[in-house]
Each structure stands twice: as C-alpha cells, then as structure tokens.
C-alpha cells in the first residue's frame, strides 16, 4: 500500500493559550484544543471516527482517558509515546489509507510547567551511569553535538546564536508566542553558558498548552469549512542503535529521508516554508544540512546570513519555534505549517506559501518528515 500524494488532508487546527495554565490537567488542556480544532473546521465530535493521542509529562494523554473525557467512541484509537506530531500524522495517514478510520483527531496536551517538570532526566538512554556523570537535560547532547560541529567545520557560537535570534524575531510577529521581547545577537552572546558551548536561548522553555489537528481523507475535505492542506509525502528513519552508531549525535541517518521530495512531486527548492522541531537550536543546523538546504557544515554561515529569516531564502519556524513560541514538543510547528498554507499568518505570513516541510526528531533515535501543500502536484 502506497499513500497517494494528497490522499489525506489536514482540515482543522486548534491550539490553546500557551505558557502557564495552572489548575488544569494535561488531558483537560488537550480536550480544549480538540474543541478549538472542531470549531476551526466546523465539524462535530460525532464526525470523528479516529483518535490519536500523545503521551505527555506525568503519564497523561492516554487515548482511553481522553476518549472518555471527550465523550467519543471512535472506531480507531491509539496513543503514541513520543511527540512532534509528525509520527501521529503519519499514523493517521496510514489508518485512513487502510480504511481503519476516515476522520481522525490528533491531540496533545501538557501541564508540565505548572506540574513542575524540571527536565532533570538524563540525556539519552541505555547506560545507567549517564546520570552519575551529570549528563542531564537534552542541552548536554546538544552541546556535544554543537562542539563537534564547530570542531569539524569551524562553526562559531555567534553563527549558532542566529538561530535563536531569528526565531525570536519571528515570535515577535506571533501574538500567541510566549517569548516576544527582542533578542539581539549581542544579547545572546552576553548570556551566561548553560551547558557550554550552549546558552539559555539555545534551549527550549518548559510550558503548558494543547494542540490538535483534524485529519481526513481527500474525498471528505468538502465537509469542512476550511481550506484543506494536503499531506503530499511522509518519511521516517531511525537510529535506534544510538551510541552504537558512528557520530550518532550528528544523526547522519536522517539524510536518507531526502527521497521525500520526489515522493511529494516537487524539488527541495519548491518548499516555501520550513519547520524544524527545535528543543535545542543545534537541531535547526543539523536538519538544514541533512535535508540539503545547505551543504554539510555550511549551516553556520547559512543562518548568520539571514537565509532562514522571513523574507530569506527558506523561512524557518515562522511561529518562533520551541525556542520562542512554546514548548509543545513540535505540535505547534504543524499547526503553523497548516496556517501558513491557508494564508492565515498575518504579519508573519510567507507570501504565496504553497508547500511546507516539517522535520522532527525523537531524541537521537527517531526522525520523521512531512511535506504539506495547499495544492497537490500532479
């Protein structure tokens, strides 16, 4: 079974207020997002015959709990234990293509800021000694990855800083973003190190919020009040052997997914707006290189020269990303991609955006990418 280009479309998006939502459970927040997404596309909850939820901090986000809270009995339901929404979107597309469901809500909600997630978890998995060496927080892996990149290619901290500075500039145009105060490259370089060579602005915040996408088959898009955004192609890859893989912190296995452009019926240069899930700024540099938006080792100058800015060659994370908009494990990147392709992004709208790509990762173990379009290339 091959997914036909444009066989599945996103018809609804919903995102709650982001930041601190005290006194609310993660599942309540997820259901809020569901309500917003249904209202967005003019569907009723009874129109859903699929539910794919995403496990969140503290073990919340299970389909059986959320289905009860939302009062639905969909034919198909599932929970994925990792975020980014890319994996959820792919599962939904497979469920629809196989006839398991026709219209599926993808849901994520978290109250990890209010619930006090300190991100103390060890950086990586496998060896029990990682924590004993103080290798905590994803900043550790990001710092090792960037130091290696700097060693191999001469990438400077200032060049890396342009990722955070650019995303902040985009967030200033996004009323829903949490961090909207200006950030200059001088401000960035004046920040103390968090995990050297990374600074505070290189690492995402912790926030509460919810997001929902509603996905259906192409022959049903007329039932929605919105302009459909089609899934043109999807790819996944893994590096499940982790540290057994050479250079695994650089994720060389991600580049296998560049076949996605041919599957989508376009070339990389046709992508109008790019989304890269960014728990750490370094990920943006990695994906730009691994997907070929710039050559190996060239991401430093590429971001410094403003090529990922709005108005640049390939605008990246126009929502402000996880570094400035909110930490929603990448879910808001897909919400923003849909809104860009609908032309709803106001001051941060990419002119004539027709094709968007989203690249995301689950640690250093899994990766996924999707290309969406407001039209379907023949």
């Amino acid at each position: 079974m091959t997914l036909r280009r444009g066989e599945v479309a996103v018809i609804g998006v919903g995102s709650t207020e982001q930041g601190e939502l005290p006194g609310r459970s993660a599942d309540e927040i997820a259901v809020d997002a569901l309500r917003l997404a249904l209202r967005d596309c003019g569907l009723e909850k009874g129109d859903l015959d699929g539910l794919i939820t995403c496990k969140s901090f503290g073990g919340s986000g299970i389909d059986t709990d959320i289905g009860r809270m939302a009062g639905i009995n969909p034919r198909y339901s599932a929970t994925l234990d990792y975020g980014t929404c890319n994996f959820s979107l792919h599962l939904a597309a497979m469920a629809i293509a196989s006839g398991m469901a026709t219209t599926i809500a993808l849901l994520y909600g978290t109250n990890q800021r209010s619930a006090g997630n300190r991100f103390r978890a060890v950086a990586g998995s496998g060896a029990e000694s990682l924590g004993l060496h103080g290798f905590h927080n994803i900043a550790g892996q990001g710092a090792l990855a960037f130091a290696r990149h700097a060693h191999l290619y001469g990438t400077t901290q200032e060049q890396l800083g342009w990722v955070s500075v650019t995303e902040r500039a985009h967030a200033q145009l996004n009323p829903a973003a949490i961090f909207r105060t200006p950030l200059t490259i001088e401000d960035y370089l004046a920040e103390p190190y968090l995990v050297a060579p990374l600074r505070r602005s290189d690492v995402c915040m912790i926030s509460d919020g919810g997001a929902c996408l509603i996905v259906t088959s192409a022959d049903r898009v007329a039932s929605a009040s919105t302009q459909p955004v089609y899934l043109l192609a999807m790819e996944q890859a893994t590096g499940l052997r982790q540290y057994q893989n050479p250079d695994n912190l650089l994720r060389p296995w991600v580049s296998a997914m560049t076949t996605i452009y041919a599957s989508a019926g376009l070339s990389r240069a046709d992508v109008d707006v790019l989304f890269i899930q960014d728990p750490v700024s370094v990920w943006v540099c990695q994906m730009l290189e691994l997907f070929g938006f710039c050559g190996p080792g060239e991401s430093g100058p590429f971001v410094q020269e403003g090529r990922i800015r709005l108005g640049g060659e390939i605008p990246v994370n126009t929502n402000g990303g996880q570094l400035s908009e909110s930490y929603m494990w990448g879910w808001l990147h897909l919400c923003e991609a849909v809104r860009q392709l609908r032309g709803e992004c106001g001051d941060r709208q990419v002119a004539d955006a027709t094709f968007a790509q989203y690249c995301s990762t689950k640690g250093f173990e899994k990766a996924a990418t999707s290309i969406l379009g407001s039209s379907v290339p023949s």
Partner: protein
Amino acid sequence: MSDEALLLAAARLLGPSPSIEELATPQIRFQQCTACGFRRYPPAPACPECLASESEWMPDDGVGTIWSYCVYHRAFDPAFSGAVPYNVVLVELDSGPRMISNVLGIDPSGLRIGLRVVAWPREIAPGRFLVYFVPGASSP
C-alpha cells in the same frame, strides 16, 4: 570544579541504588560476545550485533579519544550543585564502545576534541566504581 565534588555528586545520586553490574569492579571492562567478539556498551542481555546472549566480562585497556565535550554551568539535578562547572565528554574507545563520562584532573580550557584519554575507575561508594577518564595513555 573539583574532582571530589563530582565524585560526591555521583555518590549522592547513586544512593542505595541496586547493584549495577557496570559499577562492580575497580577496572574498566565490557561484556564481550562469546559468539562474535563484539564489546557491548551499555551492558545488555543480548549482543546488539549478532543477538547471541552469551557474553563474558573482559577487561579493556580503556584508551580512547574525546569525540566531543561540554561544560555544565548549571546543575539540572541538585546532587551536582556543588560540582558546577563540570565537564561531560563522549569518549570513543579504541576497542569500540562509546562512553559518556567526565575527564578528571583537567581545567575546561585544557579539553579538546581528539584528546587521548584513558579510563580511571574511581570508587564513589563502598564497592561501587564509576569509570572516569584522565588525559594520557595510562591511568594514575
């Protein structure tokens, strides 16, 4: 960072933790697959190369190269608050395994990618040894 503060932090975090085989001896050693010879790290119940389960713990000379390093200026776990700033390194051992550890006896300014280091297991709690590294080819 003082090396002692780092060892103390590890001891605090280890607490009454059950036996971790990896920590049981004062020498660096790995499970070596009796079928194909692959050295497992982290410890695992089966060989990730050939899937055979049998293995024996084999001593290693612990010599390797720093693949990358970073310096923590914040303690994400309070156990490490007395240890910042401290380094974390990814070492590629000549025998294959890639390990996350700390280099002792070095100022952060002395760290660099490509530096040759050697394992130096230290006793962090009675009978519990954790593998650290020091610059050079033979441990103190």
